[in-house]
């Protein structure tokens, strides 16, 4: 691509990442097209339109100056917390939990947006924290509060998956912010010790059941274990090349539950085989590599924490979803970005990508602009 032919403003965009992402999303549309029995409706077309809309949104985000980011950080955080409270109080109940606010054109899930929101808030917090304070536990209390409030609100919906997701994204930012390693080791040990206790006291019945099922899926073939078993059958029966586009019996005959959302990866592998699966994993790793590189090359602490946190947020989606569909994690309702159907998650992930793109822009201009 010659710079003379393509205008510099366009050429400077990270096409090396955006094109694979577009390919991934188009692949997702194909999977949804097949899952709908060979129809663009109701999922494939919307999926593509969502992507284009949110890509535009990402471009807009990527143009925002760093100071603007900083200035809206806390207002955004506060708004999201407020929305979470509203959802807990008035939100639509679906599938046993309250998560959504109906915006008319789409169902907004504030807890989704809290995933990048917490990253943004913590990046700003650690940026403004004097370096010397990072080893002082008292200075970390506000950070703990920033994390605890949304996490607990989300878990109260109850939505364990998203809650953990928020906590994980936050945890990584805190980790990268340079807190003493022994705290993390200690927290890890404490967590391991408390996990059984939490399992029996904090979790809801259905959540506990999911965990038990995950540990022993064959025990409950027609109940919760059914999801995992059918997903493994879908993936396993795909083989190397898959059953062919439009020929996935597990999804088409409705053996696979949630074939277009949480288990879209299984739907895909059944038809596209290991080849399709490796393509998806490769694109994700490529995006993560780009995201961490942007973070490392970022001009300041805020930008690098922001980029790394956003990368990890996307990673957490991908990892938990794929571990789940392949039977390595309990069933939690987390979709696979760019493949699964669903506006909120796509919006969140594109917001993450847009933010990383913004960081990349800030680094390119170096210190030329005020930071």
């Amino acid at each position: 691509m010659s710079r003379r032919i393509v205008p510099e403003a366009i050429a400077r965009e990270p096409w090396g990442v955006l094109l694979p992402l577009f390919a991934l999303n188009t692949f997702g549309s194909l999977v949804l097209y097949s899952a709908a029995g060979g129809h663009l409706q109701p999922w494939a077309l919307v999926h593509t339109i969502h992507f284009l809309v949110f890509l535009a949104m990402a471009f807009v985000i990527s143009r925002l100056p760093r100071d603007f980011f900083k200035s809206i950080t806390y207002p955004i955080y506060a708004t999201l917390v407020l929305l979470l409270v509203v959802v807990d109080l008035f939100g639509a109940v679906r599938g046993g939990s309250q998560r959504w606010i109906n915006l008319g054109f789409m169902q907004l899930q504030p807890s989704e947006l809290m995933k990048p929101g917490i990253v943004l808030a913590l990046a700003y917090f650690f940026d403004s924290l004097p370096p010397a304070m990072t080893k002082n536990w008292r200075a970390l209390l506000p950070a703990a509060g920033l994390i605890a409030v949304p996490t607990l609100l989300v878990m109260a919906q109850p939505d364990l998956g998203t809650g953990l997701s928020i906590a994980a994204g936050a945890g990584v930012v805190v980790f990268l912010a340079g807190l003493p390693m022994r705290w993390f080791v200690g927290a890890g040990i404490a967590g391991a010790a408390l996990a059984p206790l939490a399992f029996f006291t904090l979790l809801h019945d259905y959540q506990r059941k999911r965990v038990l099922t995950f540990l022993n899926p064959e025990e409950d073939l027609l109940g919760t274990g059914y999801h995992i078993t059918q997903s493994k059958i879908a993936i396993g029966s795909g083989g190397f090349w898959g059953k062919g586009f439009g020929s996935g019996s597990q999804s088409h005959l409705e053996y696979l539950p949630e074939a277009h959302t949480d288990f879209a990866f299984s739907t895909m592998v059944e038809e596209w085989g290991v080849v399709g699966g490796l393509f998806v994993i490769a694109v994700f790793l490529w995006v993560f590599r780009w995201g961490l590189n942007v973070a490392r090359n970022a001009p300041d602490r805020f930008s690098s924490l922001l980029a790394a946190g956003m990368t990890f947020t996307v990673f957490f989606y991908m990892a938990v979803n794929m571990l789940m569909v392949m039977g390595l994690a309990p069933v939690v309702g987390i979709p696979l970005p760019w493949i699964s159907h669903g506006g909120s998650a796509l919006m969140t992930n594109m917001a993450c990508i847009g933010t990383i793109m913004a960081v990349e822009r800030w680094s390119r201009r170096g210190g030329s602009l005020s930071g």
Partner: protein
Amino acid sequence: MLRDQSHVSSGTLRNSFERRSFLIGGLQAGVGVLLAARLGWIALVQNEKYETASESNRVNLTLIPPRRGVILDRNNAPLASNRMEYRIDIIPERLVDPEATVSQLGRLLSLTDIELRDLTDKLEKAHGFQPLGVAEGLPAELYDKVLVRLPEMPGVVAQQGYTRWYPTGPSVGHLLGYVGPASAEDYKKEKNPLLVTPGFKIGKDGFEKFFETRLRGTPGARRVEVTATGKVVRDLEMRDDVPGKPMKLTINGPLQDYASRRLGVESGAVVVMDCESGDLLAMASMPSYDPNSFSDGIGRIEWKMLSDDDHVPLRNKVLRGLYPPGSTVKPMVALAFLEAGLDPEASVGCSGGLRVGNRVFHCWNRRGHGSVNMSKAIYQSCDVYFYHFAQQIGMDKISEMARKLGLGQQFNLPVVGQHFGTVPDPAWKLKKYDKPWAVYDTVNATIGQGYFLVNPLQQAVMAARIASGKALNPRLLFDPRAQNAPSLGIPQDHLDLVHQAMSDVVNGPGTAGRARLPVDVLMAGKTGTAQVVGLNISSGKTGPWKYRDHGHFVAFAPFDKPKYACAVVVEHGGGSAAAYPIARDVMTFLYDPAKALEVLHGMENGWGGTPQQRMATRYQAVAQQYGVSAPKPADEKEILKRGESPDETEQAPRTPVTEAAPPAPEPDSDAATPAPAAPASQEAPQ
């Protein structure tokens, strides 16, 4: 601020970030590798296992119940065929919410409370995958109504299939038996998945049970692609069923139906046999059940009707009804006398009774018959004649002739459970009761009372053998070849004499003048009235039904060139007058069906319709009276047992008979002169 942390600067944090971001990157790459490895493990290494699982999800093998072999009458008219029907079944194992499903089905099919209760009862007893019939023979629009709701009702199967159909319903109930879903025991015995296929029926009784293996056929199979909810997406492969082999019976279908219906509201049996081939043309036993309504199992109202009925609708009286034959044995006894060398003109003066030992044995005609020779003894049914000469000839000769003519005999027929009764003789009594034979035993036996017990089939065989003089055996399976029956060795002049006397019973100065056929054929016959209880309890003519005399009639026609033999038994009919009009009309049907049907239609109007219509009326009445409070139907085994054993009144006396059994009065006592055939409707039993 704090001493040991003062050296922390943005530089060190930058370094720490650098290191830790590599750690995170490593974690991400590691997870990526883990995912790829897991993917490879499932999709490549374990591919075969999951491919099999996916196929067994996708493809469903369904057995198609084979069409049962049709059962034809001698003229190839179907007695039992198969009808294409819509049916709904429940597979208990697959039900998610049994109560909700049953009540939804109840609404969709507008089942009555009784039907719902029956269904719930069946569900309670259900075993696993044993399908339960909910409805059969549904109209298309009801079926469609259920079909569209199937996704909401897992465990419910709606399908089109063949159901057994008996065009004449109750008329063939006892003859053919019925079919029904296989029981848990059946399945345990056979372990055949066909037995738990919805819509499959197994022979439960009678002919259907006896020829189960021949009639069953080979199931077809259908491989279909199904969704997780069991909805069929498309057919993959289809193998047609091989219907069971058709079976042809000797039965004359219309005659069977006529005879059954002509029995009317009585409890009894009619057997018609061909005197040349031995073919059984009709084996009617009434009251019966409608085998069509049994195929879904027996509901509580049906069970209430069956178990409360003292006419024992579940018993096939042709084979399992045992009765003292009464005077119908007299032609047989006469043949025994002739064989023993008695001069047929040897006469006895009948004054209405005969002293035997210290007791007087009465003739049914207390006024006496005057001088009686053998012919008159038969057509007037004079008891004294037989009392007198039986003592001379001895029981052994009589019982020998009885056996020769088929009494006490079990025939080689494809039926379940023949009771063969008793032909008493001194050796038998000694063995059974350890008591010596007494003179009064002979006297009782010679008029077909005492220990004598026969079934209607044996009586028909006796009539056919007397008519033909051949050792005919009854046949039920059609065979175009004639039966090469050996002669009984009875001299023709003996037979001629008895034939003439039996003709005189009907056409001469005999006891059954009103049995004369309204067609140009002369029928020969013999009446019989068998007492059930002593005269000290009941006169046998009126009073409680169960104390009334049994009415018998054996006959053949034409008397000079016998073609058809017939036996009629009417349980507690009050005497032979209940039996011979039936024999007359059944014989008439063979020569002039239209005329016979006209008579029948007139009677059925008086009885409240055909057997089906009467059963429907009764069903309504019982349902109205008891509703769901009627008791649950008994087990299948118990139901079958009801028809197995004759009840006590019909069994041989438990204690030896020591009393003389005075003969019951012949009902047509005033018919000393031949009477014209009266309109049958006047003789309709009350």
